């Protein structure tokens, strides 16, 4: 009997990533050029000798399913086990969308009953970290508790963004507060749990009777804490929950530091993703590249500094790209300037267009809560006309048919979204 079966929660909407998750699920958002966010979790699984994985998808699931396929790149195409995707489905009893994180597991309780294992590891598909889950399992077995939560220390100033656990001397969680204003502990929940299988089933069945939209943080945790059934495992490495546009942008650019906290260049265990068939990076004679990560299939004739370029990006002569993140297959035309911008997949930036320069104190008018720190986001397939000027804190997305956006000028904090785009 295998010790552990994994359920990965990958169904959330990721609304705070604005245009980036308009057409894809958060786990499928590109990161560090060639990866998708979920690659980190899948790599952790396979490096931890876990090969039975269920992926709970819901929002924009094709973006995830098409990336993962049969799991071949991660060696997860197995005779027995491997990776399987569980989407909300019709059945005799439950027939509904997943209403919460624990509800998603509950709706697949028949799968849970069938799998042969001692423990269930519950992961999230939108975290960036390198973790050996075997250490977490070992802790769980030793602790004797029927459930364990992985926690990580965070700066006190950030405690308001996490679920914060307070533990006793034996490591049992005695208090759990969601996004507290002030608290003594600084141990943040990573949203990663191990349950003894039978205990998880009985807990979910009991709670489901009285609670709709069952959520691990809001419902399951308080229930377990009250009964002293859950211990905390302290994880010490780098961990990041990509929540907002701001955290996505800053975490990405942090990779460019001389010694980044997340080191992708260790020779022994690279992060695994779907291989591509692009030619290598081609740098031409006039190019000027500084402090950047650039993938296969890119062609650089212009200037690129402090930026991350996914596969297949073309930067033409005289174009300048600075502090920007550019996704797959985007084309920056001659003389264009792209500064503090995320360009999604398949964008065309016309000649001499200028994007992202302006006054960062003017928040975006449509989504001021997400976009007020000096970043402009251009949605996938958008075609920016030649000479167009777009300020900072702007959101622009062209028609998904032909990329059309009217030319001219977009002031700081402005937005243009095609009729078929709603945020």
């Amino acid at each position, binding site marked *: 009997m295998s010790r552990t079966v994994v359920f990965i929660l990958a169904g959330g909407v990721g609304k705070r990533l604005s245009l980036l998750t308009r057409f894809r699920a958060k786990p499928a958002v590109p990161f*560090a*050029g*060639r990866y998708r966010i979920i690659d980190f979790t899948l790599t952790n699984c396979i490096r931890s000798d876990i090969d039975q994985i269920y992926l709970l998808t819901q929002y924009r699931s094709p973006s995830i399913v098409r990336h993962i396929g049969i799991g*071949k*790149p991660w060696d997860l195409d197995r005779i027995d086990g491997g990776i399987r995707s569980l989407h909300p489905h019709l059945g005799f009893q439950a027939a509904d969308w997943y209403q919460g994180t624990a509800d998603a597991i509950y709706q697949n309780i028949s799968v849970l009953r069938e799998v042969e294992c001692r423990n269930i590891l519950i992961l999230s598909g939108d975290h960036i970290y390198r973790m050996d889950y075997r250490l977490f399992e070992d802790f769980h077995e030793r602790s004797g508790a029927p459930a364990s939560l992985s926690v990580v220390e965070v700066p006190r100033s950030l405690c308001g963004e996490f679920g914060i656990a307070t533990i006793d001397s034996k490591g049992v969680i005695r208090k759990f507060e969601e996004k507290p204003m002030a608290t003594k502990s600084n141990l943040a929940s990573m949203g990663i749990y191990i349950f003894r299988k039978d205990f998880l089933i009985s807990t979910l069945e009991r709670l489901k009777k009285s609670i709709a939209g069952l959520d691990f943080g809001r419902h399951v945790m308080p229930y377990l804490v009250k009964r002293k059934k859950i211990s905390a495992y302290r994880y010490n490495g780098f961990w990041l929950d990509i929540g907002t546009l701001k955290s996505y942008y800053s975490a990405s650019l942090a990779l460019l530091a*001389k010694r980044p906290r997340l080191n*992708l*260049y260790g*020779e022994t265990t*690279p*992060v*695994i*993703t779907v*291989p*591509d*068939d*692009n*030619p*290598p*990076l*081609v*740098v*031409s*004679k*006039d*190019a000027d*590249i*500084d*402090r*950047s*990560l*650039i*993938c*296969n299939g890119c*062609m650089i004739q212009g200037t690129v500094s402090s930026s*991350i*370029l996914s596969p297949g990006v073309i930067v033409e002569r005289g174009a300048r790209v600075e502090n920007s993140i550019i996704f797959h297959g985007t084309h920056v035309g001659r003389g264009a300037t792209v500064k503090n911008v995320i360009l999604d997949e398949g964008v065309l930036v016309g000649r001499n267009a200028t994007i992202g320069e302006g006054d960062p104190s003017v928040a975006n008018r449509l989504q001021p809560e997400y976009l007020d720190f000096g970043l402009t986001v251009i949605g996938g397939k958008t075609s920016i006309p030649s000479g167009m000027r777009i300020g900072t804190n702007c959101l622009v997305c062209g028609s998904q048919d032909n990329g059309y956006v009217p030319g001219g000028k977009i002031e700081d904090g402005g937005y243009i979204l095609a009729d078929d785009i709603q945020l």
Partner: protein
Amino acid sequence: MILAGGTGKELSVLTRHRAKTALPFGGRYRIIDFVLSNCAHSGITDISILAQYSPKSLIYHIGMGKPWDLDRKTGGVFILQPAYQGMVANWYQGTAAALYQNIDVIRDSGAEHVLVLSGDQVYVMDYREMLKQHVSSGSGVTIAVKEVSPSQRFRFGMIRCTRDGVVTDFEEKPASSSFRYASLGIYLFEKNLLLDALRPDRFDIVFDLIMPFLETGRVSCYEFDGYWEDIGSLRSYFNASMRLLNNRLLLSTPGWPIYTRGSDLPPARIAGGSHVVDSILADGCVVEGEVIGSILSPGVRIEEGARVEESIVFSFSRIGPGAHVSRAIVDKHCSIGPGSLVGTGGHEPGSADGRQRTEGLSHISTKLTVLGKGARIRRGEMVPSGVTIEPRYRPGRMETV
């Protein structure tokens, strides 16, 4: 049938421990990727690779053929090596001999035509066009040819043909030749004709199979006008590689990606204060120094203050701080110590400038420095231009070839 058994002696230490067809090319590829990708894109999915010299690197690279979509229920890609088959137990002693030893593979296939290719050539070609002409001409054998200038004819098998494309004569590497067309070593046979022609005492495709057949008038040529290079020598390898810097089309023909075994390495990282121009970099490279007019395979590290120009560096080699590498081919897992000089001696000033290089290819005829796999160059050591370093060379026992 892909012929991949040659020893590639002319490639010096680069082929000491690997088959020529598995030689890295263009950063992330191996030479055989081109022929395999041509097959995959041409809809050919029943492929045998006839290998015998140092096949390990080739076997590891090909695996079960997944990267080329050649892991098939029927057909796929197979590496066939000389085998003990009861009556005969021989190495492949020639191109036709290699085919003869696998005659049952040819006979048992359901194919009507047999395409014989070379695994050590770099080109992009749709074999369906060749097949179309072969079928419509009613020929028994079709040979792909290319027009070459008189000065280059000594390198090739030269072909004379009539205006209708019927081959009438053949000269192997003539000192000079009036024939305009060079054979590209790409042959399409009618299967039954090939089966009849193969005999235990026939070793060479050209001399023993095709020449005797010329008089029937059923040997045609198919003219190919794209880029084609045979990687026969260090010089042709270096030239073909450097050509990629000016002409990327070979690697990025629309609708014709070159497939290869992917790596899981992160993107190329170009650090602050580095300088990269006119170069090709595969994934996983980390550049803190200068890279000019060079090609880097996956996972190469160029440390601070190092300078690499007009060079080819294979996977996971490391150029230490302040080291200079010029006009060199550095095989994989080499380590070049801080401040050492590789290939810089006897170098006229200014010739490393990218512009001069591209204007006059003649510079390339100056001596190349070649470092075998896993060589270590000590801190501050100097390896003069034109020197070849043995694989796994360690400081203190310099053996130059």
